[in-house]
């Protein structure tokens, strides 16, 4: 167990934005909220999966909706806690820990608000070691763990429980409710036992994000090469370095060299600014960008279940 302070959250948000590979939306608002929660309620306990008992209860805290709406209608701050408490009430059991659903900049910082406000620990795991687009697109789904029952809450005091037949339906129903709530909402999902968490979530994701963020920050301060630092800390491979000459913008999924596939998802393919190591979003990528492309290995669980 260790304590996470506002300074750590800066590093976590930066490192998670790297792992999220430019996906997951603007992490700025979520980071500010997490930092504010830590300043107001004190540091959060981050525990390793092997520190929790097999029969404890964990739920992931996350945000859904349109990122462009969240930057305009900022949260009240309590929605994510309301969702967590609604799920707890529905299950009629205390949820012992919270965790991150995915490792992008937004979702890595969101559970800290719950942990700080409720004074519960957060487990150092995520449902994916990278960004994901929909609720069901995480490793627990592959492992057969249900996202439901799931709670969703807005800033007005509305909350709802979704108990769907599978994770795809959970996502569908949640999206519909989310639109009625104003296209941005907070959720508590994937209630699972400590045992299930250990078997299906990606271990150490928050610490990994923090190490990456810290490494970039220090390298910048010391005027060292932040790219090499990221490569070393992630155990990644530099695929290439250079200038973008043409781009079709979607998602970094595949690297082809001389007609041979070199790397593909589920490995995380990172596109970083060659000077600052800041993650370059797919929208931000354009001709003339000086970038380095790294491939870092995905969690072995992703391959095992896949």
């Amino acid at each position, binding site marked *: 167990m260790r304590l996470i302070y506002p300074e750590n959250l800066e590093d976590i948000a930066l490192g998670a934005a790297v792992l999220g590979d430019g996906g997951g939306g603007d992490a*700025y608002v979520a980071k500010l*909220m997490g930092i504010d929660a830590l300043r107001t309620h004190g540091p959060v306990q981050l525990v390793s999966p092997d520190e929790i008992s097999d029969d404890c209860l964990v739920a992931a805290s996350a945000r859904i909706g349109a990122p*462009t709406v969240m930057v*305009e*209608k*900022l*949260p009240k701050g309590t929605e994510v806690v309301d969702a967590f408490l609604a799920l707890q009430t529905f299950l009629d059991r205390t949820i012992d820990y919270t965790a991150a659903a995915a490792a992008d900049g937004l979702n890595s910082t969101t559970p800290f608000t719950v942990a700080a406000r409720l004074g519960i620990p957060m487990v150092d795991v995520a449902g994916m070691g990278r960004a994901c687009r929909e609720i069901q697109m995480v490793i627990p789904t592959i492992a057969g763990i249900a996202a439901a029952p799931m709670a969703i809450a807005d800033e007005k005091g509305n909350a709802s429980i979704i108990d769907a037949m599978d994770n795809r339906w959970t996502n569908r129903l949640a999206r519909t409710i989310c639109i009625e709530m104003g*296209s941005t909402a907070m959720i508590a999902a994937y209630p699972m036992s400590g045992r299930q968490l250990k078997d299906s979530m990606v271990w150490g994701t928050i610490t990994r994000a923090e190490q990456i963020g810290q490494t970039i920050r220090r390298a910048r301060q010391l005027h060292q090469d932040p790219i090499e630092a990221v490569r070393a800390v992630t155990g990644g491979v530099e695929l290439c370095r250079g200038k973008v000459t043409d781009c079709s913008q979607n998602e970094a999924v595949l690297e082809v060299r001389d007609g041979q596939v070199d790397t593909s998802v589920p490995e995380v393919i990172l596109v970083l600014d060659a000077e600052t190591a800041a993650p370059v979003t797919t929208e931000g990528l354009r*001709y003339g960008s000086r970038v380095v492309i790294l491939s870092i290995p995905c969690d072995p669980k992703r391959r095992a279940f896949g």
Partner: protein
Amino acid sequence: MRIGIDVGGTNTDAVLMDGPRVVSWYKTPTTPDVSSGIISALEHVLNESQVASQRILGVMIGTTHFTNAVVERKGVIAVAAVRLGLPATEALPPMVDWPADLRDTLGNHTYLAHGGHEFDGREIAPLGEQELAEVAADIRRKGLRSVAITSVFSPVNADMEERAADILRQQAPGLFITLSHEIGRIGLLERENAAIMNACLADLAESIVNSFRAALEGLHIDAPFYISQNDGTLMSADFAEKYPVLTFASGPTNSMRGAAFLSGLQEAMVVDIGGTTSDVGMLTQGFPRESSLAVVIGGVRTNFRMPDVHSFGLGGGSLVRANGAVRVGPDSVGYELTTRGLVFGGDTLTTTDVAVAAGYVDVGEPGRVAGLDKDLVSRTLDVIQQSVDVAVDRMKTSAAALPVILVGGGSILIGRPIQGASEVIKPEHFAVANAIGAAIAQIGGEVDRVCSLENLTRDQALENAKQEAVQKAIDAGADAASVHVVDVDEVPLTYLPSNAMRIRIKAVGDLVLSGRPLGRCG
């Protein structure tokens, strides 16, 4: 004839233009009171050209004054920051991410009230009228004079901002009120930040605009005067007094527009080398390409439309150091170049000294750098050249070679071809491209309204709005032949019973001064 003025942090430049022709120009240090610097520059250009002040039909001023005030925290006043959005938005109150010193300077007066809209136009909550009455009472008690009002999704529905302004005005008369929807786009914190910055400049806007007026009156120039905005168009002095924040980043826009005008090119890269820094930006259709990232000013995030400019530490006053590898900048002697540079009798080796030693330019006393190590000179030029090559390449949007326009006083440092440039153009009057950019700035007409699509097709609605924007630009003084639509923004408003959308259109054209449109030079 028209006069363009650029009031920078270091220099005030003035240029007198007759149609597309530069009649005379002058560069003088900016003075603390602003107006005496302007007067001195204006006197000079009028005297030199022997043009009577009555023949001046328009004065266009570009100024970095308001940006600098926020950056240096000087001349700004306390602001009541009022946000309408409860129960949403409470997690991050106004100014939450501002540097503490600036927030303290503005007094930290933040208020949250119920109100705001959803993305689809539904109300988040009814407007908190009673809460606003209490805000007004507190504003009166604290003696605050300037207010920024920001409502959630006000770019979709501005109704609550307007109603809140009415309530505050009734209960606390005489307030300077800034409404966020008038100056910003979607993105609550950034739009609110812009509104608060505008509000904190209320006093300065009045005094600066008045000092411009006084300078012109003192010289018996009674022509209308305009101030340039960040999108390269002009606003009237009265408008600028209300919206000083719209002048932010007009500097790079002016110098790029000036470069386009002087060179006659529409598609080119502009390299503006000043005393301390260089700005590199891309011209497309004669206008700067806009940045897609959040722009931070004085530590505050904004979402202004600003030119996509890459700045780096190279200028005519940059220090040159040679302990092993040669280093150029980023520090500079700035306006002290004429006392500290070697060729001016000083003891500091600057880039200008190297350019003189290389024979690129003849200023000061070249004899003072005659003994400079040839190898050092050539290695320094390599470093300078390479930094410009890299910056140009970075800002390109395709691999094709394209023309590069060199402007700014520091462009004397470049004497070799630039990589990736089809040609390098250093136009006449390159040193005052910024003031020229202000002088030729265009005038715009804007339409911003909600259209019902009950009896109209979308295309008809757009066409009507476009014609109206064009007419507004002509009414504001634009030459009809030159007016064209530059920006079309449509937001569907699905909440209204009849299908509706918000249309924002901007048309711009060359300003006609007394029936004489501005021609194109070159």
